[in-house]
Each structure stands twice: as structure tokens, then as C-alpha cells.
């Protein structure tokens, strides 16, 4: 049976842990606010540019630009976005699981991956899949310059026809309590994302009319499409950053609660042990007195 002192020590140790988890929760909450603002701010532009290029893909032949060209999916590239650090619940595990799932499903197409984030890199290094590029320290706070670099890699691979399609898997920020694991197709740009009925109706009126171009289409797409790709990758990183902080905040919140529960239990146990010791002493005194008379 542990002594009171033993239990006291355990309580102290749990309290320390609780302090750390509570501090991490507050840090995550503060970062979450900013990351969430960034993620939300990135959405309208990403949505608009995605709608624009898809509507463009509908009106121009695939030959207008290399990034519009559809090919048979013989080789696939997957971008996969994780967090940089742990202690955020199932956040990283989910991405890793989905990534492996995807790779197994498409193992016939010779998938290659670009890993974004330390956690997924570490996990993928232990696997047999081909890693084309690794980027760490990009997800915590996505920077346009780093994203441009990644975009260039992806574009080059696609234009050299080393890959025939590009996907990205990342955690989308849904709410503080929930992340939404998303798999999106980045390339080739597909002319059909009809999402709402309203858009579908609008489209049926609009479709099949050719564009007027102010500039040569090749030139225009040469600037527009890489921009599109960059925006989509940036958005994925921004979403993932917000989702990571949210996941960490929730995880640390429940860890803090668990610690409090554990402290309560241990305190109760310690009191029982103390009471047992006192009772034992009284019995000893009483029985000693009884035997003396």
C-alpha cells in the first residue's frame, strides 16, 4: 500500500503536467485565432480562382496550356500536408492514415509524394513510397515564397510529364471541434466542379460560348494557371494550420480535464489512506490501553 507521501508526489507530478497542458491549450487558442482568420481570408480568393479556371477549362481546348492537358493517369503525385508537431490528438495520424490509404488504392499508378510538414515526412520516410520532395516548417505559418517554390516543383513535374495528375490531402478547418480531412484534385484542371444547383443552371446558359481574349491565351494561362495552383496549395496550408491549432487546443483541453479528474481521484485516495492510518493508530492505542488494564 502506497504511503501518503507517495500519493502526494504523484499528485504533484500530475499537477505539473496539468499546468503544461493548460499553457499549451492557451497558446494554441491564441494561435488558432490568427490562423483561423488567415484561413478564412484565403477562402474567397481560392474559391473564385478555382471557379474561374474551371470555367476557362470548359471554354478552351486542353491544348491551350500544359496544365490543362488531360492525360491518362499513369503516374500520380500526391501532396500531403501534416502538422509540424504532435500533441494535437489524431490530427497527424488522420493525415498519415489517409495518405497511406490513397497510396495503396493507387499503387498501380506508381504514386509519388511531396510531403509538407515534419510529421508526415517522418512517417513517410519509414514507408516504401517514393518521396519527390520534402518541405518542413511550411505548415505552421504558410509563406507565399515557400508556396511558390512548391508550386514550381509541381508545375515542372507536370509539364515534363513525369506525373499525369496531382492530388492534395490536408485537414480542412471546419470548426474548433472538428477537422475535415480533404482530398482534392489539383491537376489537371477539370472543367466540371458544379457544386450548387444555382451554378449548374447558370452554367447551362453560359456553356459552350467561346471566350474573347484580350491577350494570347497561352500567355494569359501561363500566368493564371500557376497562380491558381499556388493559391490552392497556400489555402490548403492555411486550412491545415488552423485545423492543427484547433486540434491541439481540443486535445490539450481534454488532457487538462483528465488531469483534474486524476488529481481528484488521487486526493480522495490519499484522504482514505490517511484516514486508514489514523484509524489504525487509534485501534492500536485503544487495544493497548485495553490490554494494560
Amino acid at each position, binding site marked *: 500500500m502506497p504511503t501518503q507521501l507517495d500519493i502526494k508526489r504523484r499528485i504533484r507530478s500530475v499537477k505539473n503536467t496539468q499546468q503544461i497542458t493548460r499553457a499549451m491549450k492557451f497558446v494554441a487558442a491564441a494561435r488558432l485565432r490568427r490562423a483561423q482568420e488567415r484561413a478564412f481570408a*484565403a477562402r474567397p480568393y481560392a474559391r473564385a480562382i478555382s471557379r474561374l479556371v474551371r470555367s476557362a477549362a470548359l471554354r478552351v481546348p486542353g491544348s491551350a496550356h500544359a496544365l490543362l492537358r488531360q492525360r491518362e493517369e499513369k503516374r500520380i503525385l500526391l501532396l500531403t500536408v501534416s502538422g509540424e508537431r504532435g500533441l494535437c490528438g489524431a490530427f497527424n495520424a488522420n493525415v498519415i492514415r489517409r495518405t497511406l490509404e490513397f497510396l495503396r488504392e493507387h499503387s498501380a499508378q506508381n504514386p509519388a509524394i511531396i510531403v509538407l510538414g515534419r510529421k508526415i515526412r517522418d512517417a513517410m520516410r519509414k514507408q516504401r513510397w517514393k518521396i519527390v520532395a520534402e518541405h518542413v516548417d511550411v505548415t505552421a505559418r504558410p509563406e507565399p515564397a515557400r508556396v511558390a517554390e512548391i508550386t514550381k516543383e509541381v508545375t515542372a513535374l507536370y509539364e515534363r510529364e513525369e506525373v499525369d495528375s496531382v492530388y492534395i490531402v490536408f485537414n480542412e478547418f471546419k470548426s474548433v471541434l472538428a477537422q475535415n480531412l480533404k482530398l482534392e484534385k489539383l491537376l489537371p484542371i477539370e472543367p466540371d466542379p458544379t457544386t450548387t444547383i444555382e451554378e449548374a443552371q447558370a452554367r447551362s446558359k453560359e456553356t459552350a460560348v467561346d471566350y*474573347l481574349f484580350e491577350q494570347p491565351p497561352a500567355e494569359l494561362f501561363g500566368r493564371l494557371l500557376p497562380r491558381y495552383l499556388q493559391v490552392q496549395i497556400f489555402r490548403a496550408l492555411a486550412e491545415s494550420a488552423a485545423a492543427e491549432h484547433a486540434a491541439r487546443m481540443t486535445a490539450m483541453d481534454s488532457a487538462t480535464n483528465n488531469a483534474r479528474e486524476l488529481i481528484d481521484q488521487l486526493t480522495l485516495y490519499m484522504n482514505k489512506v490517511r484516514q486508514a492510518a489514523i484509524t489504525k493508530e487509534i485501534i492500536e492505542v485503544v487495544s493497548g490501553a485495553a490490554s494494560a488494564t
Partner: protein
Amino acid sequence: MLEVVTPEREVVRESVAEVQLPGLSGYFGILPGHTPLLTELGIGPLIYRKGAENAFIAVMGGFAEVLPERVTVLAAAAERSEEIDAARARADLAEAEKKLAASSADPNTDWDAVLKSVASARARLEAASHGAPIANRET
């Protein structure tokens, strides 16, 4: 429907009667029912009419897609005229022009950057000063 977005935020999303866009090779006006058009934008004020009122947005380059019922502008940066401080825009323009004058002597000037800063200062000033009634533009 006019929609102006930048990577940082959504600037405008409303139903308008007419839009004038600063295309790379000059201004052009768009009325509802326009045939689909895709273009790159230069730096300059975008003007849109809603009822009898004109509104101005300084647009710093980007892309625009025109569909019969919708104009989508993806700007690198954009500011509504009421957000622009005209005095500061004027000061910025003066400074940018001074830099332009100074750099003509310097052989390794980054012309693109200098000209761009002049153009964007001018765009902001124009948008700001025409933000009131209708404009007689001098460019």
C-alpha cells in the same frame, strides 16, 4: 454581379449595372449580357455603376473573367476608394515619381518595380479622388 477578391479578403460582392475594368491594354466597359471574356488586368481604378452612383476601386493587377451575368476580378491587391487616404496616396505618388526621375540616371534600376509603384500610387489616387461624383480622368 461583380465580385472582387484579393488573396487577403473579399473586397466587393454585389449586383451592379456596369463595370469598367483596367485591362492590360486599356479600359473596357462591361454591361450585363457581355460575351464571355478572359483577361489580365493592369494597375488602375476599376469603376462600377450601381443605380446612379459610381464607385471606385484601385486594382493592382490581376485577372478578370467576364460572363454574361457575372464579372469576377482576381486582384493581386485592391482597395475601395473610401478606404484610401487621398493625402497619403498623393504623397506616395510624389515619392514614387521622384524615385522614377532619380532612377533614370541609374543603369541597374529595376524598372518594373519602379514603374509599378508609380502606377499603383496613381491608381490609388485616382480611385480616391474620383470616389466622389463622376470623373474626368486625365490618363
